[in-house]
């Protein structure tokens, strides 16, 4: 009898835990296996190939992360530069899109911006395509990219193309954006990248 009560309570707790679980929102693109569709629904999902292997931002189990659970958030941070410009970094963690990913890293899309660059200036980039490998990209083992202020000895730096298809500032000062990217980092080729982000205000630092 005691066991039955135990099972019942455990079952209820599991049910309640499952009820509030944020969705993964990884909807497969039938043309690009392992990648998500290009969406603009604020799913906080980003996928790309690195040398043909599919990568995705990880899912944080809400049972461990609580309210931070769900798809790992990206950040949008302006890093101070020594010269006349700063570096804007759109960063998010990645892991192989497999059942049991073994390693994780960060992708940082880097834009050189003027010192007075604001969130409104960023929103104004909506619809702009930066091609011909004019931007930087880095793949690093920690959150920080390679530059003169933050040095990650394991970071690989390369060039990238970015297309901000749509960027909008929300009423809660969050920024939603969708876009495409690719790049070359060392010997690694990043292809078919796409992101659909909803970045809360706390993770936007200008």
């Amino acid at each position: 009898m005691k066991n039955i009560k135990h099972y019942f309570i455990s079952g209820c707790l599991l049910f309640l835990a499952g009820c509030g679980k944020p969705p993964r929102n990884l909807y497969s693109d039938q043309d690009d296996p392992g990648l998500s569709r290009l969406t603009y629904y604020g799913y906080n999902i980003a996928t790309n190939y690195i040398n043909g292997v599919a990568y995705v931002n990880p899912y944080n189990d809400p049972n461990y992360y609580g309210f931070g659970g769900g798809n790992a958030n990206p950040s949008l941070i302006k890093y101070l530069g020594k010269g006349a410009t700063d570096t804007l970094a759109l960063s998010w963690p990645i892991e192989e899109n497999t059942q049991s990913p073994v390693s994780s890293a960060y992708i940082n899309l880097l834009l050189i911006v003027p010192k007075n660059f604001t969130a409104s200036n960023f929103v104004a980039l909506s619809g702009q395509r930066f091609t011909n490998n004019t931007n930087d990209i880095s793949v690093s083992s920690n959150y920080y990219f390679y530059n003169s202020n933050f040095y990650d000895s394991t970071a690989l730096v390369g060039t990238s193309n970015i297309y901000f298809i749509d960027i909008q500032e929300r009423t809660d000062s969050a920024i939603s954006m969708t876009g495409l990217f690719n790049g070359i980092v060392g010997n690694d080729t990043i292809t078919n990248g796409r992101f659909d982000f909803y970045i809360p205000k706390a993770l936007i630092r200008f």
Partner: protein
Amino acid sequence: MIKLLTVLGCFVLFSLSVSAQSYVSLSTGISRDVSNNAVPFYAIPVTIQWKPFRKYLNGLFFETDYDIPIAGYSTGTAYTLNPSLPASVTLKEKITPSVFTQFMGVTLGWYIDASKRNSFFINPLVGICDQSFSVKYENYDNKNYEVLNPDVNLEKTSLVCAIEIGYKFHNDFIAMFHAQSGMLATKGSYPLSYEFISPLQLNFGYTFNYNKQAKSRKRHEKY
């Protein structure tokens, strides 16, 4: 209340006499979807009804509906990083829906002109409906472009109900309106630009009677 019961009683009494024979009917016409207002789907319905029982007290019949699809068109926008190509293109999106339903229903009707056996009927039905949607973006260069918020194929099966209101004339010809509910099934969590189809059909057809009861034949001979 008594009047209402009297009317209902008369209705049932007449309806039983109309359905007192077995038949197979075949009808077709035009179907318009009422769920998708932006891109309404049209189809050519083919309906086969079979009423196997000839007893007066059994108006049960079976119906098979298949809507021969007519594709609907919408648009989608695709984007590319390739600097040698236009940043975005508008694509023509072709959505081909297919609706197959197996119904079971009861026919209720009464004679308008008994001499010509013209009758009015109402058929409430319940059934299992299978709807599938095939989505294709025409001239889509999927190597270079990515469609934003793309629609995808979908197939679901669900319970539905329907009502048919019709008129049987010149002995065995029928004209019939068929209105069908939406599906109980959900489309899933991924947003699609189209909804499940709720067909509104106007059908014309012919009824092949067989296994008529003696009483019915006698009446026919009398006229």
